[in-house]
């Protein structure tokens, strides 16, 4: 790999700052495994102060002793480690998952130290873990969702349709007004239930699969609104409706979905609108892009309901405000509007409520969320101050690297700057007015060195030397000193300017600088995870590393000498972003940004960029160090996390949905059942054939109730909310009770149930659930083995209680049939109705008790089910 290097003769602080501030955690370990150096990123990652880390054995910080031992062994044998996974312990005790890339730096073949780049992948690991959990949960959600669709769409609708058809037929045949009324109520409850099922289906589509699908076709909103208004006239006869239409009301929309929106909104208005105030609808199609609709009625929505107006199931908390049982109408309305990229708002005050809709005529952009990069910082560059006297003074005051001050002709200190404070240690207050002899070792003062210096300065204009000086705290340092005589217009001496630099540091620096440069070069070259490169003061690329090649796609020879704006999207270049970044870095020393950058192949990636200004020892800008990190992956993780949160919300809603659905569906069911019961009684004496039919219908409504219960059970199981409430009871007694209860159904299927129960089989189980097990197994036998005998046995076996149910039906299709799978039915659905949930629930109940269930075909024919429940004797 071609790597070109440009090295400015940077000040130690700059280079050191660059290394220390590098976003890459870096450390070096010597041949004995002791950490000899670590940068700030590394220390920050782990939370240690330098003295807690540097000088300590690296093994102390590794969680796994064998891992670091292996790493060091490999390194000393000359191996290069790449993306070696390890776990480090932070000061706070947390464990960071990292990958380490490292090799040994040798001089004359001798192990000097390792160069080690660390990358923290803890977040990545966590996200991966969360993602796996989520995928599992989503898979469950999807399965459940399919189940709801199947139950709601098929299993619930069919009996409902049967009820509606039978009732309509009956309506034509009976004249008894009470029967007529009852039949009407059956029909309206069925309709209500059907609406609920539709809403629940929509809800499950919107929230669980990810958006209501819409089909766009040319549609006229005015027609849709007129139709919905007709419904309102029917629902609320005599209520005045004012409809105003302006402009073009056509667009590419899903007409049936928008019809639902209008029906929901107008229905809502019809239900809540004050009687004296007319319903006002305006459709404004005068704008080319969007059609606007306002629906206004009298009345005010309570303030506490307003924030929740579009939320699903708000009805639970605010039952007064619910519209149609489930309170899903407005939620679905909003979902449909959003699916059309439209907006919906509601305003409600002063006895007036308005829903406002904006519907774009066609899709503006795909519905998938797009990530907008945060707006670039637009700091105004302060105008550069042209040096007036004041400005010059300000400038001098701010210089930190040089002590610059003025002396009166007598040698008393007149001015003081930040550098003087930093190097010599006195504050301005402490220094000004004192004699400059305080900076000199006593022996120099006594030898009259000071006077000599001033004399030379007076004579030659300046005096320059390197020598020992003394700081406020008494320590000595090696200083470069320049004293300049200052004279006024007529040549009169007015004082001296003195510039002092601390060379102790520089001497030390110069020794280390070579090492640093070498180290830096070596460090940087190998980094693959970060693009690290240098720019000259004009922004042209001056050096290039492996990471830069990997991330940006350019080879060193392709890019060196070209301007770094190549890495920026065009709009950023036009906006002057590249110049701005360099200006900020030059002014403040450092610039950091996150934003889109462009690879060689034109693709964009989300990057973290740090630009550091590099200056030579005279403070001249010699270029910039630039570190770019590709955060695309991290951003993907973040986006994934957002989706994860949404999915978790979906899961939570699903749970609420289930409990709500089963509860709310029972409301119309209650009406259905009571009315059908009453109808049966009423008709039986009049028309036996009709009564028979109603009886059947009635059974259908009973089945609806069971389905709703199964739905809830399965959802509890699937969401891990299946709880047992154990109590002590006699299994034989309970079994006999269930058999007794089921005897009528068994008789209807011409099944004879033989019961054989052991006495005194007491244990601690959930009675309700155990009854359910027996009921389901018996129900299953009655369904599949009609006409034959059914044997029910309960006995003890090695500390377990066993429930056995066997029949003489067709038996199981294959021994390995997944009979306990959630939707498995041994026979095809055409032959047998109902859900395959019963056996699944049996299995879950048995397992929740620590027991098991087994199914097999008996040698004499028929299926045999054995449920084993551990027997915990109660005291």
């Amino acid at each position, binding site marked *: 790999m071609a790597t070109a290097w440009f090295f400015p003769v940077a000040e130690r602080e700059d280079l050191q700052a660059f290394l220390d501030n590098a976003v890459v955690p870096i450390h070096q370990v010597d041949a004995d495994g002791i950490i000899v150096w670590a940068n700030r990123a590394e220390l920050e990652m782990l939370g240690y102060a330098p003295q807690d880390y540097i000088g300590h054995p690296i093994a102390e910080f590794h969680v796994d002793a064998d891992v670091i031992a292996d790493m060091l062994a490999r390194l000393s044998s000359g191996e290069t480690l790449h993306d070696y996974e390890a776990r480090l312990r932070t000061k706070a005790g947390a464990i960071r998952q990292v990958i380490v890339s490292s090799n040994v730096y040798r001089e004359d073949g001798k192990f000097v130290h390792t160069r080690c780049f660390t990358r923290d992948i803890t977040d990545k690991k966590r996200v991966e873990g969360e993602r796996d959990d989520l995928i599992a949960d989503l898979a469950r959600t999807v399965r459940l969702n399919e189940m709801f669709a199947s139950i709601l769409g098929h299993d619930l609708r069919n009996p409902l349709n049967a009820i509606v058809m039978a009732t309509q037929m009956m309506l034509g045949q009976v004249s008894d007004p009470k029967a007529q*009324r009852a039949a009407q*109520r059956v029909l309206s409850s069925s309709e209500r239930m059907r609406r609920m099922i539709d809403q629940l289906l929509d809800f499950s589509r919107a929230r669980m699969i990810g958006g209501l699908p819409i089909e766009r076709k040319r549609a006229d909103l005015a027609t849709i609104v007129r139709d919905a208004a007709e419904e309102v006239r029917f629902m609320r006869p005599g209520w005045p409706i004012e409809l105003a239409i302006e402009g073009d009301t056509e667009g590419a929309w899903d007409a049936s979905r928008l019809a639902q929106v209008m029906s929901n909104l107008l229905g809502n208005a019809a239900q809540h609108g004050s009687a004296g105030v007319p319903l006002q609808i305006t459709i404004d199609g005068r704008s080319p892009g969007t059609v606007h609709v306002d629906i206004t009625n009298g009345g005010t929505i309570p303030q506490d309901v307003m924030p929740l107006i579009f939320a699903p199931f708000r009805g639970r908390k605010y*039952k*007064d405000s619910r519209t149609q049982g489930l309170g899903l109408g407005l939620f679905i309305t909003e979902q449909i509007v959003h699916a059309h990229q439209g907006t919906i708002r509601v305003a409600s005050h002063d006895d007036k409520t308005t829903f406002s809709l904006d519907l774009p005529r066609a899709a503006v952009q795909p519905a998938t969320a797009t990530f907008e990069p945060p707006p670039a910082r637009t700091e105004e560059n302060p105008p550069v101050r042209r040096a007036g006297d004041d400005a010059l003074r300000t400038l001098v005051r701010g210089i930190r690297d040089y002590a610059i001050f003025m002396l009166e002709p007598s040698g008393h200190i007149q001015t003081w700057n930040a550098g003087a404070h930093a190097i010599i240690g006195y504050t301005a207050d402490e220094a000004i007015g004192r004699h400059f002899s305080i900076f000199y070792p006593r022996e120099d003062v006594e030898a009259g060195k000071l006077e000599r210096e001033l004399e030379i300065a007076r004579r030659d204009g300046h005096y320059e030397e390197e020598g020992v000086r003394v700081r406020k705290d008494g320590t000595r340092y090696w200083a470069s000193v320049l004293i300049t005589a200052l004279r006024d217009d007529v040549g009169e001496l007015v004082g001296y300017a003195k510039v002092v630099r601390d060379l102790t540091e520089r001497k030390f620096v110069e020794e280390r600088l070579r090492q640093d440069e070498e180290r830096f070069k070596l460090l940087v070259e190998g980094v693959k995870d970060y693009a690290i490169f240098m720019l000259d003061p004009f922004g042209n690329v001056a050096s290039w590393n492996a990471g830069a090649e990997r991330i940006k796609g350019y080879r060193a020879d392709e890019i060196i000498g070209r301007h770094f704006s190549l890495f920026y999207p065009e709009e950023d270049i036009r906006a002057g972003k590249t110049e701005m970044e360099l200006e900020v870095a030059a002014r403040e020393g450092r610039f950091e940004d996150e934003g889109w950058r462009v690879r060689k192949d034109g693709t964009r990636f989300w990057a973290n960029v740090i630009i550091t200004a590099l200056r030579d020892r005279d403070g001249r800008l010699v270029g910039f160090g630039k570190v770019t990190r590709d955060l695309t992956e991290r951003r993907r993780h973040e986006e994934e996390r957002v989706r994860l949160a949404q999915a978790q919300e979906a899961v939570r809603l699903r749970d609420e949905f289930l409990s709500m659905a*089963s*509860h709310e569906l029972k409301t119309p*069911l*209650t009406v259905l059942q*009571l009315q059908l019961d*009453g109808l049966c009684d009423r008709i039986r004496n009049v028309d036996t054939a009709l009564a028979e039919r109603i009886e059947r219908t009635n059974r259908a409504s009973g089945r609806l109730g069971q389905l709703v219960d199964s739905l809830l059970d399965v959802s509890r199981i699937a969401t891990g909310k299946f709880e047992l409430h154990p109590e002590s009871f006699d299994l034989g007694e309970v079994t006999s009770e269930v058999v007794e209860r089921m005897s009528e159904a068994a008789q209807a299927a011409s099944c004879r149930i033989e019961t054989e129960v052991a006495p005194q089989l007491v244990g601690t189980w959930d009675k309700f659930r155990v009854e359910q097990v027996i009921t389901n197994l018996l129900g299953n036998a009655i369904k599949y083995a009609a006409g034959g005998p059914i044997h029910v046995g309960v006995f003890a076996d090695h500390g377990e209680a066993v429930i056995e149910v066997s029949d003489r039906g067709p038996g199981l299709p294959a021994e390995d049939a997944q009979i306990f799978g959630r939707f498995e039915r041994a026979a095809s659905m055409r032959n047998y109705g109902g859900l395959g949930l019963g056996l699944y629930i049996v299995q879950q109940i048995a397992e929740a008790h620590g027991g098991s269930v087994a199914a097999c075909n008996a040698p004499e024919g028929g299926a045999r089910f054995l449920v084993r429940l551990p027997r915990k004797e109660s005291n």
Partner: protein
Amino acid sequence: MHVVLVVEDDPDIRATLCEALEDNGYSAAGAANGAEALEYLRSGAESPCLILLDLMMPVMDGQTFRTEQRADPQLANIPVVVISAYRDVERQANDLAAEFLQKPVRLETLLETARKHCDAAA
């Protein structure tokens, strides 16, 4: 005449329960929530032999109604049967010292409950 007070916010269920009772020789009064029920009970109208009580209702829910009713010596002795769709209606009803019926309720069960309380009271 035996009066049964039906406290239920859903108009369909309320009407259906009332009709079912009326069709079978009872007199029924409906209330859409606990507050309406208390108002009825304190209005001087004929005291019911039974109160059928839904739990989740606006304005005043079933629990609050039951607490108020039991605190009023004039009303405390009227038997209450909770009707709810919730699975744990039994536990809730126990907490309220009341019997319970699970929704959806069969006509036969409803009439049995009414017979038990009202015919005995006669």
